[in-house]
């Protein structure tokens, strides 16, 4: 009996893990000229959309002391920045191509996305 319960719970656990991490909907925030991204266990907003050819300022403010998040890497824009705790660090980008560009922490564990339209 206990084995059946463990099996059912396990399968539910796997299904829940899949749903929780892989089925989340990304909320997209449209940015016209500047945006504050809070770095705390990830990036919020995680997905921003901007217009092609327009220069925008992204202000990263890190509240999370986890060393994983201490750097932000926007490799498509050749930017790797150290984010001191609780300080606003601004990066400027002017995307020339449309598409989806990932950004991540220095260890590539946390991800965000810039959608250029």
């Amino acid at each position, binding site marked *: 009996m206990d084995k059946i319960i463990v099996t059912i719970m396990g399968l539910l656990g796997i299904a829940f893990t*899949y749903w929780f*991490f892989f089925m989340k909907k990304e909320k997209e925030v449209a940015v016209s000229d500047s945006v504050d991204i809070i770095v705390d266990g990830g990036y919020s907003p995680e997905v921003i959309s901007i217009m092609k050819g327009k220069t925008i300022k992204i202000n990263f403010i890190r509240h999370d002391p986890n060393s994983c998040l201490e750097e932000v890497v926007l490799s*498509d824009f*050749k930017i790797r920045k150290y984010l001191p705790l609780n300080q606003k660090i601004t990066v400027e980008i002017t995307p020339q191509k449309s598409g989806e560009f990932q950004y*991540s922490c*220095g260890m590539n564990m946390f991800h965000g996305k810039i959608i250029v339209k």
Partner: protein
Amino acid sequence: METRKTFSIKGMHCASCVNLLEGALRKVDGVLKANVNLATNKATVIYNSQKVTDKHLESAVASVGYQAMTNEELKSEDEEKAEKQKELRDLKVKVIVSLFLGALILWGSFPGLMNTAPKILQNFLVQLLLATPVQFWAGWSFYRATISALRHRTANMDTLVVIGTTVAYFYSVFVAILPQVVESIGIEPMPYFDVATIIIGLILLGRYFEAKAKAGTSEAIKKLIGLQAKTARVIRNGKEIDILINEVIIDDIIRVRPGEKIPVDGVIIEGESSIDESMITGESMPVDKTKGDTVVGATMNKTGSFTFRATKIGQETMLAQIIKLVQEAQGSKAPIQRLADLVSSYFVPIVLMLAILTFVVWYNFGPSPALTFALLNTIAVLIIACPCAMGLATPTAIMVGTGRGAEHGILIKDAESLEIAHKIRTIIFDKTGTLTKGKPEVTDIIITGTLSQNEALQLAASLEKGSEHSLAESIVNKAESKNLRFDKVEKFQAIPGYGVGGFVLGKKISLGNRKLMEKEKVSLKTVQADIEKLENDGKTVMMLQVDGQLSALIAVADTLKESAFQGVKQLQKLGIEVVMITGDNRRTANAIAQKIGIKRVLAEVLPNQKEAEVRKIQAEGKIVAMVGDGINDAPALATANVGIAMGSGTDIAIEAANITLINKDLRSVAVAIILSKKTMRTIRLNLFWAFGYNIILIPVAMGALYPFFEILLNPIFASVAMATSSISVVLNSLLLKKKTIGLLP
């Protein structure tokens, strides 16, 4: 959009400055609020970023006689360092405390060892007391990271550590408080506080070493920033004063004494000296400089004393440009990283699912006590998985690789260029200005008509005065050295790839190559032997035609760079085909190519055809690099798989180039390729290690070897393996620093 900015102001000394500055800043259209603090010498401005830029703020501050330092990025380095050091200190304390407490618990609970431990340590409740601070104080950073990650529905390594150790901890709490309940279901009451605490201690220890090692990967940038001089001795109003480097303005006259660092970029106006530029260009020999020569900030003045005029300051200096370029390269992504990226974005949730699966399988099919096996193996799976090693494998190597390049005067624009460079099979060198010094001199003037040598030279020089071709300069220089007069040219015409023409003193003249003479139907029969002889010596021959008659042959030769022969030889040793491309005629080109050992020559190529020639070689299926000066061969540089530019003067931001050699040494082409090969080897090894580690050890932790060899992975060993795996990747990248990337013997 409202923006808030705080910046330093130089030159403030009294309270009235505050009012003056606030007034000036508030007057700027778009500024909503401006506060100036005398104590900190800082202004805080809230403004509309659509209307106001840094320039507006700077000029408002300058209008009342002060200087706004709106761009203070370099300054934050110290703060960054202090913050890092504090973090490391805190981490060290946590590591020591948790490993000490963990060791006590282990002593009191490990079979075989526990008999030697004092009775008090064997008490479950004492163990609970010792384990609790480790779990929730030392391990708090894992919890914090997990909670905020879960809020974003993401997971990382901390999530795995938290789940693994929390399961071990709470199971142990249950056993410690209610041992009889556990016993009643047939399991020996055995807490696993040692597992939870030692895992936390070891992973924190791993983080400590990793943070220390990681600091080494970005050392190159710090070294470059450290090169900057702190002060400059400027001459203002006839007085010499020492000022901070960021107070230097363009056109300041700066004095540099022997043994001093040159503060900014500029041009010498008086005096001469020998200057050590090794820190910027990697060139080991000091360079002699005199009036009119450019000097580069952060280089070291050796013997003489001189004054120079500042031409580039702040972010415009060569050092600042190098720093920017290296920073950009370190922020870019190598294509080889793509797979690791893809895997790491799914990795942690998959490990979580595998951990659940492990529990279910061991609980249902494992030997007795099934719950203990299931629990320990699940924890082992969670702890052994190490996504960080995958994330660190490529970027750390790229950071060390690009940094090493910068130390040798090789600036790599991005990780992709560094990656492609190791696949280069063919390298095309532009001749003029790349293999040669680009300063041709007139070597022979052979008269074929009635004009004297000087008359012929005078006509040729008058005509070439209006041309920008490098050969033209040599003729003009020769005429100047003979004090010849330049006559006025009418109807001047330059035909690229042919030569120039026009009317001088009423005579129709033209000067150019054989093709131009053919076009103008001038016979070269009588001088054929002379032309051939000159060309066989590697000289470029120009023909002067006056009123339809051939009047003179003017031969010009360009000196080869000292590093050309070695540079080509090194590449050939690496098995790379070397090609020379030039507008010269075939005979001259072959003669030069032979001198430096180049076998394949593309001669008589017009400037606009260079790009097509690059494409032709690419069509042979080869990865091609083009080496040029970055000025007139920009399209060819951009077309090549890797464009390599020889840096000129203090401008290193050559757009079309992927790699810029600021030391102007042709041997550096081979060094860049060796560096690329070594970096790629390091990356491959890192990726192999990071992937191999997870692919092999996760199944082992799940118990894949148990049915055959009864091998299981103890969670404590899992944490040792995990902690060492990311460190080993970082250390392997750091090994790149120790590797010789010099030339082959």
